């Protein structure tokens, strides 16, 4: 089958949807002439025209709000916030405007738009260009939040997000743009429904729940653990809101242990939410507390010597699973059914 990398898959999703729906527009900084700073929309302005591929001024709150107004009028804008960190400069537009329109209008208006935003660390970009802020969006009712880990998922989910009638925050890990692994991406059209998790690797002893780039680390960890005879199941939730808890539940009933992995800062991260839901509903099935492997509660440092230490790596996941199974210093096994 034809293979694509992550950024090419996203480009293809955007191009196909632009060709399919004349009401779709792309807006953001450097999206037109330059084709976006990460090169995802190169050639788009030529193919679709400057009226549909719009270079905006550096006015995040302004142009995100413009997209909201356009969406309320029936267009389908896909806005790029160049770095998710910059979304903090337009949080009013996202949280107080886009997210609220459907409900506050009694369901008479909607905002069919996608906010694509590169996120994540590992590229030595320091504290204002490296964060993982997905939890902030999940906290706002009215927003859907998606974070794909593979080229196949990115394409299918983005196409669904574009066709969705609600504001969707679509988080793309920057490191995945440059991740050289390709995967099979069919040339014929396909969609992936929002809110469906994917079991990326089946296993019996422990459930590792992850999204975005941490899925890659989780799969590496699972491979290493397999050599030690530990069978880990890796669930890529893909969509944080809506969340496919059924897949998580079925897995944990089988494995009785769970580790949630995310790159975002641990404190207030979405892993805490998932862990709480597991504790609430599956307490009797658990053989151990739900563990979180997550970013340290710190500003992302510039220096490589520091950055790699505060972002969860494969080894951290392996170590946590070992503790869970063999009883490490933090593991407490008291909840056996």
């Amino acid at each position: 089958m034809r293979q694509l990398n992550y950024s090419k898959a996203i480009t293809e999703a955007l191009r196909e949807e632009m060709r399919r729906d004349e009401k779709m527009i792309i807006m953001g900084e450097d999206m037109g002439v330059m084709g976006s700073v990460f090169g995802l929309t190169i050639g788009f302005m030529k193919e679709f025209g400057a009226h549909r591929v719009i270079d905006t001024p550096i006015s995040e709150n302004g142009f995100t709000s413009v997209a909201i107004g356009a969406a309320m009028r029936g267009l389908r804008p896909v806005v790029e916030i160049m770095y998710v960190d910059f979304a903090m400069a337009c949080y009013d537009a996202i949280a107080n405007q886009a997210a609220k329109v459907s409900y506050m209008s009694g369901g008479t208006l909607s905002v069919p738009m996608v906010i694509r935003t590169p996120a994540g660390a590992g590229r030595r970009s320091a504290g204002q260009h490296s964060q993982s802020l997905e939890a902030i969006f999940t906290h706002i009712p009215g927003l859907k939040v998606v974070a794909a880990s593979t080229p196949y998922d990115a394409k299918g989910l983005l196409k669904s997000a574009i066709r969705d009638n609600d504001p969707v925050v679509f988080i793309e890990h920057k490191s995945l743009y440059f991740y050289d692994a390709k995967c099979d991406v069919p040339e014929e059209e396909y969609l992936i429904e929002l809110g469906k998790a994917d079991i990326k690797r089946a296993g019996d002893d422990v459930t590792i729940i992850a999204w975005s780039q941490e899925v890659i680390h989780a799969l590496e960890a699972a491979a290493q653990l397999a050599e030690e005879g530990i069978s880990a199941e890796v669930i890529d939730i893909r969509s944080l809101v809506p969340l496919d808890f059924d897949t998580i539940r079925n897995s944990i009933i089988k494995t009785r242990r769970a580790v949630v992995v995310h790159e975002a800062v641990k404190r207030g991260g979405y892993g805490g939410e998932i862990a709480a839901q597991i504790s609430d509903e599956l307490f009797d099935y658990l053989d151990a507390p739900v563990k979180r492997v997550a970013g340290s509660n710190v500003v992302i440092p510039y220096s490589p010597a520091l950055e790699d230490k505060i972002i969860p790596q494969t080894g951290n996941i392996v170590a946590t699973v070992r503790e869970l199974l063999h009883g490490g210093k933090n593991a407490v096994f008291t909840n056996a059914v």
Partner: protein
Amino acid sequence: MVIRKYGRETLIKFYREMKRVREFEEKACELFAQGMIEYNIHTCIGQEATAVGGCQALEKNDLIICTHRGHGQCLAKGGDPGIMMAELFGRETGYCRGRGGSMHIASIDVGILGANGIVGAGIPIAVGSALATNILKTTEITLAFFGDGASNTGEFHEALNMASAWNLPVVFFCENNKYAVSVDIERVSKVKDIAERAKAYDIPGVVVDGCDVLAVYETTKKAVERAREGLGPTLIEAKTYRYHGHFEGEPQVYRTEEEMSEWKKRDAIERLYKEIIEAGFASAEELADIDKEVKEEMEEAALFAQDSPWPAEDEAMRNVYSNDNERSVAR
């Protein structure tokens, strides 16, 4: 005399529309004082000419973005007072089925693209609507109402800049009522007229007497025609004054009785009333009949709201999302 340019019918309509706004607000104040309206309201008594003059310059399919002080704007655009009042009451029959309340009336059918509780936030949304008009190749223009307070937000500047750069069919309509809650615009801006700020974006900026409904109408009409011809946005600043506090019961320690009575001497409704009578377009009796009809209309609106059902409790979780709502609110 300017008034001679207008026929009796138009003048009576302007008078009636302004009376409707005032009467709606007076009624809402009364109901709020009685505890019938849950949350405090921001009334536009004193600002009737801006809402009416602005909206009369628009076609039915044109769109407006309203402010937190937006009852007059909604009513003037064609909103039904009963459905509006029901929204203030939080009832299922309101424009937003009671989910938005006083500050958030929206109705695409009436051409109200929403009102905002975040000062300034509606201005770029109006620009987005104007962008849609251009891309969809339709004809409606969008008018954004906002206050003097909003003119100091980043959204104002970002919106004017984009609308100017992209030459969009939008009218920026500033109701400068002098105060952002308690803060006099002169204390937080060195620019004498907000309309001057249009220069920064190379678009026309016009100051108009916001107590003169005909002047507001003419100024807005020009801006609307300009936008419709594809000549881009205009910034209108209408100098006006609100007679009540920022919200009902607000102590108003920031202004004097003298200032208030000076402004009330310029009352837009009284002014048009005098002009109509002096020019012989209608008698005092005819205008009194209109006053009576308007009063009855607003009484009926209040009764409609009072008699309307509350939203069903099991509806609370609906409409957070337009599709896949149940799953999206479940966790």
